[in-house]
């Protein structure tokens, strides 16, 4: 091999500087893995040419699954045989991304035997990513992972691997058990995850409070965001402590309340709870004094996605409140109806949110049998072009 082919002058620049370096990670894996070596060399070429060298994905996978593996081939496989086949396995992460050292080592041992030794913890959707396997290694890797208790996640037009925030495991603001719901839904839809049945991908994320640490509202077709219905719990002496420690409650809490539902008279904090929009600001600022109410559950929102194809959408309200203990049953029924409608009316490569934009939220609500409520809109329509149903079937 000529000298210049092993040099990585551009990438070496990325070993400098204080932030931990991904180049060092590739070099570390390259000490024992020929495919990591060739990844490094191909990446250096990309940096030189300002161009990627991956071909379009191919149809590879494990027996009986249509998802969980992303096929990847180099367009310079002759030059870099180690990455001629460099497929990704998406391994369904444990809810909340909790591990033990033993679990991590188990994954490392399997992956070192079968692949490049490179991983992502984690991919954007939440899976633990094993980066770079040859086609022949996919099935053996999968079966070793399965024997160790791990399974693959979703890809393509499937139910994508759900993810959730840390929830009740380590957060006092969790309004429902996000890790349990995430796990239970994952288990309920294994078939839809592994054998893509939909017009396009379907993502689901569980955020246990409106701070939304998993970006459910932006990144999930179905966003389950914890909230509460009753009064914010107030510990008055703790409020007084914050004030005496120098917190300007009027300026830093009341003035920033989006619905101006709070009043501070210098001694007592009063909250008009029916005007509260449950934004979390006051609770975030005074975690020792304020807490979400006792009547907890979630708002279910639908349609969030990135731009492809008709433009980005944030999820919008579908069910304003579901009590925590009813979430699993309600969601299973709702998901069934939503998927049925999407299956029937969705176009190929059309996310739920785009289908709702196309058919209109009223028609979608009719289709899934949900009554319209004012919480679903920021305001009623301002245009008079109404598709009146007078004279249509069923209209009185």
């Amino acid at each position, binding site marked *: 091999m000529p000298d210049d082919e092993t040099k990585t002058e551009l990438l070496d620049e990325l070993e400098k500087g204080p932030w931990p370096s991904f180049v060092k990670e590739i070099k570390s894996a390259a000490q024992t893995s020929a495919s990591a070596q060739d990844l490094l060399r191909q990446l250096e070429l990309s940096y030189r*040419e300002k161009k990627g060298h991956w071909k379009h994905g191919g149809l590879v996978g494990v027996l009986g699954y249509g998802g969980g593996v992303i096929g990847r081939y180099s367009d310079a496989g002759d030059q870099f045989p180690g990455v001629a086949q460099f497929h990704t396995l998406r391994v369904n992460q444990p809810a909340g991304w909790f591990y033990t050292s033993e679990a991590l080592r188990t994954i490392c041992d399997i992956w070192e035997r079968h692949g490049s030794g490179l991983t992502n913890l984690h991919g954007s959707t939440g899976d633990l990513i094993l980066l770079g396997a040859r086609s022949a290694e996919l099935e053996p890797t999968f079966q070793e992972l399965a024997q160790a208790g791990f399974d693959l996640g979703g890809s393509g037009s499937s139910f994508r691997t759900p993810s959730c925030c840390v929830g009740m495991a380590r957060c006092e603001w*969790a309004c429902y058990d996000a890790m349990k719901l995430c796990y239970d839904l994952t288990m309920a839809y294994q078939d839809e995850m592994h054998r893509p049945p939909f017009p396009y991908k379907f993502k689901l994320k569980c955020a246990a409070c409106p701070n939304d640490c998993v970006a459910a*509202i932006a990144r999930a077709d179905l966003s389950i965001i914890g909230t509460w219905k009753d009064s914010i719990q107030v510990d008055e002496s703790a409020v007084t402590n914050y004030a005496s420690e120098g917190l300007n409650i009027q300026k830093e809490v009341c003035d920033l309340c989006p619905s101006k539902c709070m009043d501070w008279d210098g001694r007592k904090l009063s909250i008009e709870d029916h005007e509260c929009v449950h934004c979390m600001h006051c609770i975030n600022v005074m975690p020792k004094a304020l807490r979400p109410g006792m009547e907890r559950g979630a708002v279910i929102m639908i349609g969030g996605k990135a*731009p492809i194809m008709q433009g980005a959408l944030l999820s919008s309200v579908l069910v304003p409140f579901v009590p925590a203990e009813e979430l699993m049953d309600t969601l299973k029924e709702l998901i069934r109806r939503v998927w049925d409608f999407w299956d029937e009316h969705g176009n190929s490569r059309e996310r739920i949110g785009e289908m709702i934009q196309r058919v209109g939220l009223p028609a979608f609500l009719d289709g899934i049998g949900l009554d319209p409520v004012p919480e679903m809109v920021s305001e009623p329509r301002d245009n008079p072009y109404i598709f009146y149903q007078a004279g249509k079937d069923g209209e009185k």
Partner: protein
Amino acid sequence: MSSMPQPRLTDIGPPHYEKYLHPLIKKNYGQWRYHENLAPGVYCHVAESGDRIYTVRAGTPRLLSVQTLRRFADLADKYSGGYLRFTSRNNLEFLLDDPARIEPLKQELIARGYPVGGTNNAISNIVHTQGWIHCHSSATDASGLVKCVMDAVYERFTHEDLPAKLRIAVACCLNMCGAVHCSDIAILGVHRLPPKIQHGTLPRVCEVPTLIASCPTGAIRPATVEGKNSVSVVEQQCMYCGNCYTVCPAMPMNDADNDGLSIWVGGKVSNARSAPKFSKLAIPFLPNNPPRWPEVVESVVKIVDVYAKHARKYERVGEWIERIGWPRFFRLTGFEFTRYHIDDFKHAALTYARSAHVRY
């Protein structure tokens, strides 16, 4: 015992999370009362029972070798009983029941090159995509950009001195696997030329109706080229999203000279104070300049510095800009406002100024 082959397992799902929870977490699950921030990167969560669990958070490059993962496992064994987790922004968290171990763990993490921080009003780690490491449609590399930006704002990760939290994301094409569309600062790889149609291979590898349907603007039309079924692209209608390339490999978008980066600002996903919002265009194009992307780094640092100087306490970037107005944002940053900043896609009119509320 005979060596019977093990039965093939499928659809077992992920391991149950409970077996990975620290005993203190299992004991106090759903019973947390409040938390305190002991230092940048260090939390203490206090349970109703009085139990305390300490979290030490460190940044990682997300792309991790098994060697490094084993090192993390060793650190967990040494300091946190073997218990650790990762955050939604690729940070590593150790869960400790003994506060005396916080400082030694911090020191060891820092000595090994993993910065401790990323909490509260800091810049947390960057959510990002695969880029040239593993993606076919990327206009740039994500890991390299992340490394360069985080090197430049390193002190903002290890300190909590911003007006509010600041979240950065990198996506290397409009697919936005990194969901940059709701970030305080987003770096987005863009293509700027229409796909180069490979008429020779297209009929073999692509389904023409699917390809035509893939175009958001209807720019792709059926065409017969040298007697074969293919397509043509109405170039004025192409906005370089790359969706056609995703469904058809014979429509490559990559172009070394014309691909580059755009910068977006002011998005958020949290509901705190103002509603979640999309990021808006700040800079339509910067050159793809590896390995250190100086133009991108300079622009991000500029936004962070101007924001840090001018925003009020608790204001996210988008909230700050809404208060001062976009004209002032462009004046303060010195970024040029161009025709590209004015939306001309669907719902564009909703972004046009429809009042006489003008700041002078």
